[in-house]
C-alpha cells in the first residue's frame, strides 16, 4: 500500500470529488468544528461546520443507543448522513474510526445529474 502522507493526495482527491456533476461545495472540518479546508466563504463554512457537528454528534449518539440494545451490533458506528432537501443533498461523512476525527461535508445539487430512469427509458 502506498503511504499517503503528502498534501498532494488530498489535493488530488478533492479535485476528483469536485469534478463530479452537481458538487457545489465541500467543507473539511476537524472534531472541534473548525473548518480546515473549504471552497465556501468563512461565514458559510462556519455555519455548515457548526450545524453539521451538532447533527453528527446527535446522530452518532442515537445510533449508539440503538446499537447498544443488541449485542451483535454493539460496535456499530455512524458512517454517513445524507440530508436531502428540495434543492440540495448534503452528504456528511464523519470519521470516528481510529480517532481520526475529521468530517467531510459535500453539498450536491442532485437535479444536475443524469436524466431520470424513466426519461432515459422514454428516450431510447
Amino acid at each position: 500500500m502506498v503511504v499517503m502522507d503528502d498534501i498532494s493526495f488530498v489535493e488530488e482527491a478533492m479535485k476528483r470529488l469536485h469534478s463530479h456533476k452537481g458538487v457545489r461545495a465541500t467543507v473539511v472540518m476537524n472534531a472541534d468544528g473548525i473548518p480546515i479546508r473549504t471552497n465556501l466563504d468563512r461565514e458559510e463554512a462556519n455555519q455548515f461546520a457548526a450545524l453539521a457537528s451538532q447533527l453528527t454528534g446527535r446522530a452518532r449518539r442515537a445510533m449508539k443507543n440503538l446499537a447498544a440494545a443488541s449485542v451483535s451490533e454493539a460496535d456499530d458506528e455512524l458512517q454517513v448522513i445524507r440530508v436531502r432537501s428540495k434543492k440540495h443533498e448534503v452528504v456528511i461523512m464523519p470519521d470516528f474510526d481510529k480517532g481520526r476525527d475529521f468530517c467531510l461535508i459535500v453539498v450536491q445539487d442532485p437535479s444536475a445529474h443524469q436524466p431520470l430512469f424513466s426519461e432515459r427509458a422514454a428516450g431510447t
Partner: protein
Amino acid sequence: MEISHQYVKQRKDFGRHPRFRDEGAEMLADIRPNEEHAKNFVVRKTISTSIQVGQQMSEHEVNTNPVVLVNRGVLHTEGGWPKEIDCTEIEQVIRYRKKVEKDEHYIRAVVALCAGAEEVVKENNAIDIYEQYWEGDDAKYSTEAAAAHTLTQLLDPSPSRRGAQYLCWHPDGSRKVAVAYSVLEFQAEGAPSDSYVWDLGNPAQPDSVLSPTSPLVCLNFNLRDNKVLGAGQYNGQFAVFDTRQGSNAVDATPIVKSHRDPVYDFAWLQSKTGTEAMTASSDGRVLWWDTRRLGEPREELPLAERGVPSGALFGAVSLDYSPAAGPTKFLVGTEPGNVLLCNRKAKTPADRVGASYSGHHGPVYGLSRSPFYPKMFASCGDWTARVWNEDLRTPLITTAYHTAHLTAIRWSPTRPSVFFSAREDGVLDARDYYLNTQTAPALSTQVADCALTSLRVHEGGSLVAVGCRDGTTAVLQLSSSLVDLQPSEKAATLAMLERETAREKNLEKAQKEAKIRARKDAVAQEPAAAAAAGADAAADAAIGEGDNIQQLEKEFFESTM
C-alpha cells in the same frame, strides 16, 4: 410431678332427675308502673338512613394547569479553537490550518472520506432514488368518516368572562390566530378591553397583546403587511395595530366621524397599497377608510333598500368582501334578516345598494362567499343556514331548522361542497353536499357547553378555530375526508348548484305566469258576472257536479264491497 386424671361425665348421667308438676301461681315480684319514669319517656325520632347495594363510584376530572415550556438553545458558530489561537486573527487561523493540513492523520482521513463521499455523489448522479413513478393518477375517494378532534383550547387570560367574538388566522398560513374578546350585551361594562394574538405552538401564553381603548368586536390581519391588524371597536372606532410597535393602537378613527354603534364586521380591500378597509356597523352605515389618513371616512354608504324612500336604515351585523366576485362588490347581512348585495362603484349612487335577499327571520350573523363559485354565497341567521345564488331572490338550499340559533358560517377553502356552521348550543356542524346526504350534516360535534360565537377555517382547510361565549377558543383538526378535494367534486357540485338555480328560476317563472293568469281571469270574470246570464248555467253545472260525485261514490263502494 403433678399427676392429674380427668374424669368426664355428662350432667344428665348423674344426680337426681328433675320432676315437673302442676302448681298454682306464685307471686315473685310486683313492679308497679312508675309515673316519673313514664314522664321520661321520649318517642324515638324517625331517622332516615340510606342503604346502597351497589358499589359507590364517583368520577373526577382535573384540568391541570398548563405547563409553560420554554426552549433554549445555544449555537456555537465558531468551532472549538485551541485557547492560544485567536480565531478573529486571520493569520493565526491560516497558520493553524496549515499545521493541521500537514498532519498525517488529516491526509489519510480526508482521502478516505473523499473516496466515501465520491461513492455517494456517484450514486446520486447515477439514479434518482427519490424519483416519483406513476404520478398523478391515484384518484381515490375518501371513505373515512368525517371527524374532528380538538387540538388545543386557548383560554382568555382575563378573569372576566368575555366572548371570543371574532377570529382571524394569520394570512401567511402559519398557525397563529388573532381573537377579539368583547361582551356584546347591552351596557355590559367593566370588562377588560385587551385582545390577543395566539400561536398554536404555545397555547399557554398569548403571542402578542392588543390594548385598544374599547373592546374589540372584529379584527383582521392586513392582507399585504401581516404584522398589521385592523380592528373594529365596541364604541364604533376603527383602529389599526402594529405588532412590531407595542400593544397600543397605532392609529384610530376619530369618534365623531366613526360609527355610532359597535363595528360588527370589517374587511381589508384589495388595492395596490393594501391600506383601504371598509367597516360595517349596526348604525346602518358602511364606511370606507384609508389607514394612511384615518381623519375622516373616504366614503359612506347608508344601508337603505332601493326604492324605499322612507330612509330607514338596516343595521349591518356581518359583511363579506371577496375580490373574486368583483373588487367593488360586497355583501352585507342585516339585523332585519335580509342580505344586501352592494357595489361601491355603481353607475348611480342610488344603485350602490343592489339586490336584497330576504328569507331569514332574524339577524344574518354569518355570510360567506364560496371560494370556488363567486356567484354563490352562504348565510346563516335564525335557525337555518342558506345557500344563495346572486342572480336569484330565493335560496338554493335551506337547511332544516335547528333547535338553536346559528351564529357563524364559513366555506371550506379546499372543498367546494363543504361548509361549517356554529350553533348557539355549542355544536359545530359540517355539511358536505358531495360525500354526504344533503339533509343532515356530515359532522356535528359538541365543541363547548356554551354558545359558539365565531368560526374561521384555516386556509389549509384542516384547522377550524371556534370561539365560545365564555372566552375559550377551540382549535379543531378535521379528518382528511373534510379537507382533501375529491376527484370531480368541483364539477359535480357546480352541476348541483346550477340544477338548483334552474329549478328556482323555473319556479319563479311559473309563479309569475300564474299571477298574470290570475289577473287575466279576474279581468275576464268581471264582465261575465255583470252579464248574470250564466248564473243558471253555473247552477246546472253545480248540480251536474253533485250527480257526478254521487255516482263516483257509488262506484267506489261497489268496488270495495
